[in-house]
C-alpha cells in the first residue's frame, strides 16, 4: 500500500479514522482495489515505480465536510489531491502528481445549484458533469445552450480550472466562469467577485467584485478547493450554420489565417474554427518525408506539386455561426465573400441546425459538440476498421500564434519531430480553442503492457516539449507527469513567475497539503527535489 511520504502506517490509519468520522466510513477508500480506481488509466508509467498513485481517497458530500478534511490534513500533514470528476484523461486522470497523496474526490458534490434563463448562467458544484447540467436544462425546458468538451462526463469546474474548451461562442471555459467559492487549505471558505458581499445579487454576472481579481490564481494551481463556480451560458440560438473553406496552395495559409484572425477580432466569427492541412496532417508517405527533410523544408512550388499529385487541397477550414437567422446568414455570407479573394478557393455550406430541436433530433444529430450536446461518441475504442488501438494517450497541446507563418512552421516542425520519434504520435488539427490563439493538440499513445514502448513515448514527449518551446510555442495545459517540465519553459527573468507562485503557495498553504507539485508548485520542503 502506498503511504503519504514520511508517514507511518499507524499514523496514517489514525488519520483515516478521523476522515471517516468527517465524511462517513463508506466514503473513505483505502482498500487496494478501491484506491486502484484512482490510477491514471492512460499513465505513461503504468506499473512502473514512477507511476503516480494515491494512498487513499476521501469523498465529501458538503462544503463543511471539505473544510473538515482540510483541517484533518493540516493536523496530520497529509497531502491532499482534489479532483472534480477525475476525467482529466490524457492529462493524468485522477492520479495525484505526488504519489501517496489522498485523493479528495468531489464527485458526490454534484448539485446544479441555480440556472437562470433570463441572465443565462448556472451555478454548479465540482461533481456536476456536462451531462448533468445538460439534463437539468433540458428537463426544465430552459432555452439555454451549454458548451461541452468532446467527452461529456467531465466536470464543468474541473475543465474550466484546467483552461479546457469546447466549440461554441462560450468555448473558452475559463473565460465564461463567473464567481467561485473556495475552501482554502486552512479550511476557511471564501467567495470571489461580488459573491464576497453577504447579500450578493450579481455573483454570477459580474466577475471582478472590488479590489484584486483573484479567480485566476485558483486555476492550474493548488491554492484552494473550488466548491462552487458560476458559468455564463449562451441563450439557445435560432440557428447554427457551418461553412467549410478549402484552398489549394501551400502559401494560401497566409491569407486564410489573416482573414480568420481579422474576422475573429472584428466579432464576425465568435466560435471555434479549425484549420487543417489535408497534406501536412494527412498520411505521410516517403515523398512527403523527403520533402519535409530537405534543407529549408521544401519550396512552395514543390509542396504545391505534391498536393496536386495527391489531389488534395492544401488547406481546409471550418467555421460555425450561432445566433438569430438573419445575423448568422449575414456573417456567414460576409466570411464567404472575404475568402472569395483567394484564387481557387471552394466552399461548402452547412450543416445547418434550427432550434428548438426535438429530443429525437438532438439524439440523432451527428455534430453534437457543435450543438452543445454532451456525448461519449469519441470513446469508440476498437472498430472493424481499427482493430488495434492504444490503451490510452497523452495529449500535447501547444499554443500557436494566429499567423499563417506560425501555422506552417508548427505543422512542419512538429510533424517532422513526431515522424522522427517513431512512436505513432498523432498530430492534430489547429483550432481556435481560446479567443485569440490557435491550439495544436497532438497525442502520444500509451500501452499498459509495454514498458519499453512507454519509455520511448516519454522520451518523445519530452523532446516535443523542448522542440516546441525552442520555437516559442508554450503548452496551454500540461500532463500531470510532466508539469515541472512544462512550467520550466515559462522561465523569464530567472523563473520570476514560478517564484511568485511559490510565494503565494507558502502564504495560503503553509503546510503544503494541497496538490503538491501541481503545475510545478511544490511545498517548501519538496522544492528542488522534483
Amino acid at each position, binding site marked *: 500500500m502506498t503511504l503519504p511520504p514520511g508517514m507511518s502506517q499507524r499514523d496514517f490509519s489514525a488519520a483515516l479514522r478521523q476522515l471517516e468520522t468527517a465524511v462517513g466510513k463508506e466514503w473513505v477508500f483505502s482498500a487496494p482495489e478501491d484506491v486502484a*480506481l*484512482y490510477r491514471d488509466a492512460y499513465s505513461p508509467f503504468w506499473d512502473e515505480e514512477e507511476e503516480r498513485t494515491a494512498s487513499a481517497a476521501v*469523498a465529501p458530500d458538503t462544503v463543511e465536510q471539505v473544510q473538515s478534511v482540510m483541517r484533518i490534513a493540516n493536523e496530520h500533514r497529509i497531502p491532499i489531491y482534489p479532483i472534480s470528476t477525475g476525467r482529466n484523461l490524457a492529462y493524468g486522470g485522477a492520479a495525484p502528481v505526488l504519489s501517496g497523496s489522498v485523493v479528495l474526490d468531489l*464527485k*458526490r458534490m454534484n448539485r446544479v445549484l441555480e440556472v437562470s434563463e433570463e441572465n443565462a448562467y448556472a451555478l454548479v458544484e465540482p*461533481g456536476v458533469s456536462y451531462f448533468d447540467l445538460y*439534463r437539468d436544462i433540458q*428537463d426544465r425546458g430552459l432555452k439555454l445552450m451549454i458548451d461541452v468538451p468532446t467527452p461529456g462526463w467531465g466536470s464543468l469546474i474541473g475543465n474550466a480550472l484546467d483552461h479546457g474548451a469546447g466549440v461554441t461562442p462560450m468555448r473558452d471555459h475559463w473565460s465564461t466562469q463567473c464567481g467561485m467559492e473556495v475552501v482554502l487549505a486552512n479550511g476557511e471558505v471564501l467567495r470571489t467577485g461580488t459573491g464576497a458581499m453577504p447579500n450578493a445579487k450579481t455573483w454570477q454576472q459580474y466577475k471582478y467584485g472590488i479590489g484584486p481579481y483573484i479567480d485566476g490564481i485558483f486555476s492550474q494551481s493548488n491554492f484552494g478547493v473550488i466548491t462552487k463556480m458560476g458559468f455564463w451560458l449562451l441563450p439557445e440560438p435560432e440557428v447554427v450554420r457551418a461553412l467549410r473553406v478549402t484552398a489549394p496552395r501551400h502559401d494560401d495559409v497566409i491569407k486564410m489565417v489573416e482573414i480568420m484572425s481579422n474576422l475573429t477580432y472584428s466579432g464576425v466569427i465568435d466560435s471555434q474554427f479549425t484549420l487543417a492541412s489535408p497534406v501536412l496532417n494527412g498520411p505521410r508517405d516517403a515523398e512527403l518525408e523527403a520533402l519535409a527533410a530537405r534543407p529549408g523544408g521544401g519550396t512552395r512550388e514543390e509542396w504545391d506539386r505534391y498536393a496536386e499529385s495527391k489531389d488534395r487541397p492544401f488547406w481546409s477550414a471550418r467555421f460555425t455561426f450561432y445566433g438569430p437567422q438573419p445575423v448568422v446568414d449575414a456573417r456567414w455570407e460576409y466570411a464567404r465573400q472575404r475568402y472569395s479573394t483567394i484564387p481557387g478557393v471552394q466552399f461548402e455550406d452547412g450543416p445547418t441546425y434550427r432550434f428548438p430541436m426535438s429530443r429525437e433530433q438532438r439524439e440523432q444529430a451527428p455534430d453534437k459538440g457543435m450543438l452543445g450536446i454532451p456525448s461519449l461518441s469519441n470513446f469508440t475504442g476498437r472498430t472493424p476498421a481499427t482493430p488495434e*488501438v492504444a*490503451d490510452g494517450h497523452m495529449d500535447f497541446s501547444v499554443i500557436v500564434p494566429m499567423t499563417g507563418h506560425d501555422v506552417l512552421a508548427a505543422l512542419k516542425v512538429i510533424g517532422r519531430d513526431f515522424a522522427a520519434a517513431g512512436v505513432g504520435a498523432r498530430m492534430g488539427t489547429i483550432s481556435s480553442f481560446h479567443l485569440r490563439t490557435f491550439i495544436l493538440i497532438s497525442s502520444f499513445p500509451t500501452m499498459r503492457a509495454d514498458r519499453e514502448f512507454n519509455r520511448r513515448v516519454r522520451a518523445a514527449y519530452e523532446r516535443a516539449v523542448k522542440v516546441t518551446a525552442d520555437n516559442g510555442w508554450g503548452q496551454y495545459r500540461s500532463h500531470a507527469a510532466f508539469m515541472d517540465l512544462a512550467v520550466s519553459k515559462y522561465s523569464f527573468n530567472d523563473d520570476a513567475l514560478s517564484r511568485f507562485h511559490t510565494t503565494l503557495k507558502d502564504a495560503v498553504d503553509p503546510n503544503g497539503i494541497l496538490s503538491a507539485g501541481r503545475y510545478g508548485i511544490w511545498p517548501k520542503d519538496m522544492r528542488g527535489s522534483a
Partner: protein
Amino acid sequence: MSHRIARAWFALEERTDLVPELNGMFVRNGLSIVPPFRKTEISDADLATLAAYLAPASNSSLQ
C-alpha cells in the same frame, strides 16, 4: 429521464450473456480506452442492481 436511460442501455439489454460478474469487471476495470468507474460514480449497491437487471434471467423476463 427513464426513457433516455433505457434507450442508451438498449444494446446492453439485448445481450443475453451479461452475467453479473462480467458487468462488475467491465465497470471496475475498464476496457480498452474506457477507464474504470469509481464508487463515487456508481456505488457497489447500484452496480449490483444494474448487474442483476442486465443478467440473463431477468433480461429474458423483460423482453
